[in-house]
């Protein structure tokens, strides 16, 4: 192993410049404020207090977590059966399904989101269709529904692929063994397949929840300017207010929330494994 260690050096340099250094800068900005002409900056926790003590910002945070949670749950509900089906398909069909699922990600996310505007707006595709039957128009654009739809649409491939991979990696003889021991189809699924595919679900959750909770262009385009999520607050602090210190503090708070949620999901995963080995 040792002789390969040198091969990681380029990546270590990359991490240092592209990840560690920016993180340190964010930490620095978050804990400082612009000083007067004598002192260029001074250390403070003011930026954090400002976020936590303002109900408006806390509401925004709550809304972001709620939307991300709804998105993740919908992704699992739709994604799990789809992944299960694909995993059971023949080799050739599998590849075609994976291709179909990844196909939209070949197109830039912004472009696809703009397409949703055209589909959802009052004189858009859906409402024109409904109009033929004399229904509507129903306002769909600039609602929470549109935002969740946009997020599910954008992130669901990650969920399906993660679950699909863990299902295909599963040893089929385990299911056969369960069947031999008299388990019916349902029991087989709940006792064997589901627990073994949980790691895939967990990594799917991280790949969907994290981008959803910090997303800012989907809520801006599909939710309208009044649909503010944490990502939008951070964006406005950097681009319009020019308050990098406050923006960094919010980013750091988000990073901490994300780390906690990662830790919790990991915990759920490991306890599950230990329970399984115990029974």
């Amino acid at each position: 192993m040792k002789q390969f260690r040198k091969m990681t050096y380029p990546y270590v340099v990359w991490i240092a410049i592209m990840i560690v250094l920016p993180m340190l800068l964010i930490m620095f900005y978050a804990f400082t404020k612009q000083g007067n002409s004598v002192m260029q900056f001074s250390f403070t926790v003011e930026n954090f207090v400002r976020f936590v003590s303002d109900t408006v910002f806390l509401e925004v945070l709550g809304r972001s977590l709620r939307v991300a949670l709804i998105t993740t749950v919908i992704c699992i509900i739709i994604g799990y059966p789809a992944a299960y089906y694909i995993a059971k398909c023949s080799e050739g069909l599998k590849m075609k399904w994976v291709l179909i699922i990844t196909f939209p990600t070949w197109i830039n996310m912004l472009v696809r989101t703009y397409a949703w505007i055209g589909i959802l707006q009052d004189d858009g595709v859906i409402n024109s269709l409904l109009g033929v039957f004399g229904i509507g128009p129903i306002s769909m654009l600039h609602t929470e529904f549109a935002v969740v739809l946009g997020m599910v649409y954008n992130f669901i491939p990650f969920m399906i692929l993660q679950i699909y991979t863990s299902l295909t990696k599963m040893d089929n003889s385990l299911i056969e063994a369960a069947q031999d021991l008299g388990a019916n189809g349902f029991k087989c699924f709940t006792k064997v397949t589901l627990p073994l595919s949980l790691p895939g679900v967990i990594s799917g959750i991280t790949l969907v929840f994290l981008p959803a909770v910090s997303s800012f262009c989907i809520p801006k385009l599909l939710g309208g300017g009044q649909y503010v999520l944490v990502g939008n607050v951070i964006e406005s602090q950097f681009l319009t207010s020019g308050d990098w210190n406050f923006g960094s503090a919010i980013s750091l708070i988000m990073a901490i929330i994300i780390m906690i949620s990662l830790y919790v999901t990991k915990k759920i995963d490991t306890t599950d494994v230990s329970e399984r080995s115990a029974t």
Partner: protein
Amino acid sequence: MKALKRMAAIVMIVAICASCAACSGNSGSGNSGNQGGQTAKEKYGSTTMKLFIPGEYMSDDLVPDFEKEFGVKVIIEYFDSNEMMYTKLAAGDSYDVLVPSDYMIERLLKENQLQKLDKSLIPNMANLAEEVKGLDYDKSNEYSVPYFWGTVGIVYNQNKVSEDDLKAKGWDIMKDTRYKGRIYMYDSERDSFMIAFKQLGYSCNTDNEDEINAAYEWLVDLNKTMDPIYVTDEVLDYMIGGSKDLAIVYSGDAVTILDENEDMSYFTPDSGTNIWCDAMVIPANAENPKLAHEFINYVLRDEVCTDNTLAVGYASPNANVLAEMTGEDGDYAENVAYLPRTYEKDEIFHDNEKLRKKLSELWIKVKAAN
């Protein structure tokens, strides 16, 4: 077989790259081979100039025609916002003509970043309309020549909203609960706070804390009671489609909306609004100021102004063109948004970094308040 395919792919890629390179190479040499190049070089010292202008803000023919007539080459760059233009300029990029807004010109002037115009080289300045001459930021037009101008106002559906109501209520119509869920606000702190300031009878350049707070409360109240949607340029498409009854829009965009949808009209309350002006200036570090003067003079020609205003829809700075467009049989005779009505209380924005930051800090809270 596989190797053959790969070869073919590589050959194709090389061919595509080569043809792209050839194309760009060709267009470059095509322009420099202009006949008038020699004399232009003698006259201006150089045959190229750089123009920095907001996107979609100029007739497509303007620059090519100028290049042809004077045997020169104009390099065009576009910017999204005045702030972005300022950042590039501060980074040391050199341009010959810029087209920023009023408050940004004020800031550039404060920082000595502009050069004084030689008015003898711009005889067409005689055509300037009274409304845009000597605005606050440049009282005797020594540094700037207006390019387009207009106001901020309300586009409304005449079948749903009566003009009498608008006259009676002014900006407060945006808080009339009969139109709840039927309004678009413009997602910009400056324009939104301007509306609140004007409705409350303050100046839109105030930095009085109490007045700012009152305006903030006015906007929060609007956000809570009216379920507004905050949009920017998309408002054009949405209002042309007629999806809502009321929208805050720049007069030039309103011209386009009114042209496309007959139900829509434009209104500016007499409690006052923001009157704005984008103008051509020559930065201090311009490399080719002589050609820049020639360009500014060219843009002010009657026929060039006519083409430009017809292409973009914003009000021309040229008095003759304004009269022609709004006169009988003029292209914009029927369009009430084209020539903005102006009131005593209309104001131009001033450069105030502190106020801008304060407003943008409050703005995200206005939008997030539910």
